């Protein structure tokens, strides 16, 4: 009987030590990410040449693409974390999944906002059936739904399993949404936002922005993940205290 308790307390101590290590890494990531994004803001205006056709508004693109890109990576991470949770049932994966979902929704939301401003300046309508824009919108609806499920009053395992399954299904649905959005406008040729030929400097700035946001995103996910682990600990303590009886 003693060994059962000591084993449980052992991995509790391990996760506590890991928590401290993560704290330092977290701080570094967030700071570095923040600085890199600030630098990229400078680079966008100073270094990148102005695009002839669209002029200044094209510069919004350096912000919009990284947001959309890392938002998608976030949802991929949420799907993978879900798969690992279903396979291994360790609470850590659920915490990472929750963090990835929330951060992903934030990024996708911002990408959507900047995207619609882009649409406003480029085609002076707030909304067009641009495949990427409409996919981002539908993704925001789906993942907002998944986060709503996480807030319902379920036991920990139930919420974690549901969230894991939904994260996988939602990510599998994204390509389907994208292709249907591309087919939907009656025009045969899908409208491609002009990001084909990028001047080398522009590409350099874009990659720099991408990297900067990437570091910041990683810091954000880790921060939210540690918070999710703390929330799990709180829930366990509440049960132990008999606050919410079975």
């Amino acid at each position, binding site marked *: 009987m003693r060994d059962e308790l000591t084993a449980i307390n052992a991995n509790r101590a391990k996760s506590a030590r890991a928590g401290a290590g993560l704290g330092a890494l977290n701080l570094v990531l967030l700071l570095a990410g923040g600085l890199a994004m600030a630098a990229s803001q400078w680079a966008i205006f100073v270094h990148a040449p102005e695009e002839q056709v669209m002029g200044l508004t094209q*510069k919004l693109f350096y912000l919009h693409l990284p947001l959309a890109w890392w938002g998608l990576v976030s949802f991929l991470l949420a799907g993978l974390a879900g798969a690992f949770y279903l396979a291994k049932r360790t609470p850590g994966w659920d915490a990472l999944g929750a963090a990835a979902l929330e951060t992903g929704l934030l990024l996708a939301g911002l990408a959507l906002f*900047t995207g619609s401003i882009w649409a406003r300046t480029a085609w002076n309508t707030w909304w067009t059936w641009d495949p990427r824009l409409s996919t981002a919108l539908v993704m925001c609806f789906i993942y907002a739904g998944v986060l709503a499920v996480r807030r319902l009053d379920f036991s920990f395992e139930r919420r974690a399993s549901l969230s894991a399954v939904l994260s996988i299904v939602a990510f599998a649905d994204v390509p389907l949404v994208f292709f249907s959005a591309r087919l939907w406008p009656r025009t045969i040729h899908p409208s491609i936002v002009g990001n084909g030929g990028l001047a080398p400097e522009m590409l350099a700035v874009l990659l720099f922005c991408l990297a900067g946001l990437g570091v910041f995103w990683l810091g954000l996910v880790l921060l939210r993940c540690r918070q999710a682990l703390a929330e799990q600990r709180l829930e366990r303590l509440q049960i132990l205290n008999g606050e919410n009886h079975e």
Partner: protein
Amino acid sequence: MSKIDWLWLGGAAVWLGFGAYLVLLARRQASLERRLAGLETSVRSGNDLPAEES
């Protein structure tokens, strides 16, 4: 709204969005720590604390 204004709006929105999210996280973290501290003292001594079921 000239084009430059839109650009400002877009950039500001992104920074504000991140800022707001970080503030939200910070506030949630504070309330979490307060409740955790409160609970830990009322639960029996820390090391005899069974963790999550396997």
